[in-house]
Every structure is written in C-alpha cells, then in structure tokens.
C-alpha cells in the first residue's frame, strides 16, 4: 500500500481508469482539490482510502464505506467504470468524494474514529449529537430531524449538485453548456435503489425529469474517454 500525503492509495487503485480520472480531478484548480485537502491537512479528522472492488453490484460504479479507525474508504468498480465516458467516471468519483466529505464532517463532530453510535458511551453520543447540532445543523436536520434511509442522497441532491456541476465543468474544460453539467450532477441523486427517489427529484416536473434523464444517458455513458 502506498501513502500519498494522507490519501491512502491502495495498490489495486494504481494504473486504473479510476486513478487516471482521479488524478485529472486532483489537477483542477479549485473545488475538487479543496475537498480533497480536507482529508490530507495537517490535522485531518479522517483519511481517505481509494480502492478497486469489482464485486460491487450491477450498475454500481462506486461505494463509500463508513469510516473505521479514522479511514473512510471509497471503492470503485473498475469494470463498470469502463462503460462510462470520462465525464461519467468523473461524476461517479466526485459523487463518492462528497459522500466521504459528509462522513468527514460527522467524524469531526464525533471526535472518534468511527460512527458506530451503538458502541459509543452515553456521554460520547450526547457530545456527538450536540456537536452535530451546533456545527452542522443542516446535516443534522437531514440525518435525524427529517430522517429517512436515503438521507445522505437527499442532502446531496438538495445541497451539493452545484458543487458537483462546477467540478464537472472544470474537469471537462467547459466543453458543454453549464446546464448539461447541472443535469449530469443528478446522476445517482434522482431515482435510487429499491424503488426510492430523493425528495429533490420528486419535486421536479415530469418534463424536467425526462430532460435530465436524457442528458445523463447521452453524456454519462457517451463522450470522450481518454482514461482507458
């Protein structure tokens, strides 16, 4: 295993399509680099580990595993990433990085290495919940006050799509109109697994949903693919 700063690059991740796109994202001037920096600062509360796992389920390009011992792991399915354009691969990577960022915030509130609340003492749990309320009220609102099993995607769909669209626009050198990046940012944030969908998606009109789905189908899968 190689350590690059505090981002842990697993040997499985080396020389893959995922690594190729990740490196391109890291070379961007602003958004993505800033998001990543939070994991490799002088006193990071969470480290990020990047691995390849080709046993992930159908249509699953990547997953984020909740932190253990201060490490949040993102696993990518290299085989399935191969079906995507570079823009699609970048979308999948940015999507998972934001999940990791949400876990990083939760860890910083917990001041512990994991989020297994059922293994916390009563005092640790009280401190954690109070810290969430005080420092991340929006996150707390989705995670507890309006809890739903899809809360993580609901939070992202409502508050992180612009962040994703901005990163994609920069990654893609502004090749397309911004509205297309906004549409692609919905990938994984509209219809979810097991017949669920996010609140933000449900609030769209049928024609908006159709336009977004069509643009995702067009650009997520098709387009320039130099990371092969």
């Amino acid at each position, binding site marked *: 295993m190689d350590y690059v700063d505090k981002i842990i690059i697993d040997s499985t991740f080396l020389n893959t399509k995922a690594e190729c796109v990740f490196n391109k994202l890291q070379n961007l001037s602003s958004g993505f680099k800033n998001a990543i920096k939070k994991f490799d600062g002088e006193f990071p509360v969470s480290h990020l580990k990047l691995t390849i796992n080709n*046993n*992930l*389920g*159908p*249509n*699953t*390009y*990547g*997953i*984020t*595993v*909740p932190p253990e011992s201060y490490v949040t792991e993102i*696993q990518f399915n290299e085989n399935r990433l191969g079906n995507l354009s570079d823009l699609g691969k970048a979308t999948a990577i940015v999507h998972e990085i934001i*999940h990791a960022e949400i*876990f990083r915030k*939760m860890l910083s509130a917990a001041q512990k290495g994991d*989020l*297994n*609340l*059922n*293994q*916390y*003492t*009563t005092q*640790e*749990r009280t401190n954690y*919940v109070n810290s969430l309320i005080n420092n991340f009220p929006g996150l707390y609102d989705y*995670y*507890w006050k309006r*809890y739903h*099993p899809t809360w*993580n*995607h609901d939070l992202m769909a409502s508050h992180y799509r612009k962040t994703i669209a901005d990163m994609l626009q920069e990654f893609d050198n502004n090749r397309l109109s911004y509205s297309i990046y906004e549409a692609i940012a919905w990938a*994984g944030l509209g219809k979810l*697994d*097991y*017949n*669920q969908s996010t609140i933000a998606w449900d609030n769209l009109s049928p024609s908006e949903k159709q336009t977004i789905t069509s643009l995702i189908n067009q650009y997520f899968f098709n387009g320039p693919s130099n990371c092969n």
Partner: protein
Amino acid sequence: MVLQIVTDMKKIALFIIILTCNIITAQKNDRDYYTLVKNGEKYLKPIKYVLFSNEKDEKIISNNSKEVIFNIGKQSFKYIKNIDKIDTCSILALQKIKISSIKQLFEEEYKEHQRKLKLEKVKFPPPPNHYNLKIFMIEKIINNKFIKYEVDWIYSIP
C-alpha cells in the same frame, strides 16, 4: 404395511429437515444481539429473510470460495464460510417465514431502532451501519429445496 412404513419414513425425514432448519436458527450467539450503547442492554436482533433471485440478482463467490457476496440491486450481503451458518430447507420450512424486500429491511431496521429508543427513553439518530437485524439470504437450488445463508448486510452508500 410396507407402504405405510415408507410414508411414515418420509414424514419423519420431512420433519427432520424442518426441525434442522429451525434448530440451527434457534442457536444463539453474541452476534445475534446488539446494544444501543456501549456495554448497554443486549437486545436480540429480529430475524429477516431476503429471497435471492437467480435471474435478477448477482451472486459472487470469492476469496477461494470462502465468501459469497449477494448483490441485490446496490445492496450487498456477505456470507463468510468459517463464520456464518448455512442450512438447507424444504419449501415447507420456507412457507413459514416472511420474506422482506430491501425497502422493508430499511424500514424494519429503523423501526427497531425507534422501538428501543422508546424503551430506553433516549433519542438519537441510527448509526450509519446496519447493526440491529439478523439476515438470512434464501437461495433456491432445486425444486422445493432452498439454501439459507446467514449474511452480513454490508453498509455502504452507492
């Protein structure tokens, strides 16, 4: 007379199959329990059954056949040979159990969390891991025969 003996033997065999299924399920260990808080009251995990579809779902045998991963949609369940139980069941045993969908699993784990919060008179969000259900994956092998795998519901966000 011979026919009667054969019929009786069939009944006994069927009873043993059903009994075996239930006995293995009935044995309890620490993994069958969970707590809301460190060193807190131990609660028995409610048992849930998920039906694996050979047509729709994906089964991956990995790690030199020591692990089986069941991918149902974007949810993954792992059976580990040396840790988890495995059992063969007849269709009669299967008829006695309730199969849950993935959506129902999510709902059930949240309801279970809420029930115990009420019991202990505390309020806090569920941890972002699957901690309070015991799950068995049911896979049809041949007509009227099923394998029941004890599995871990792997928590991850796609």
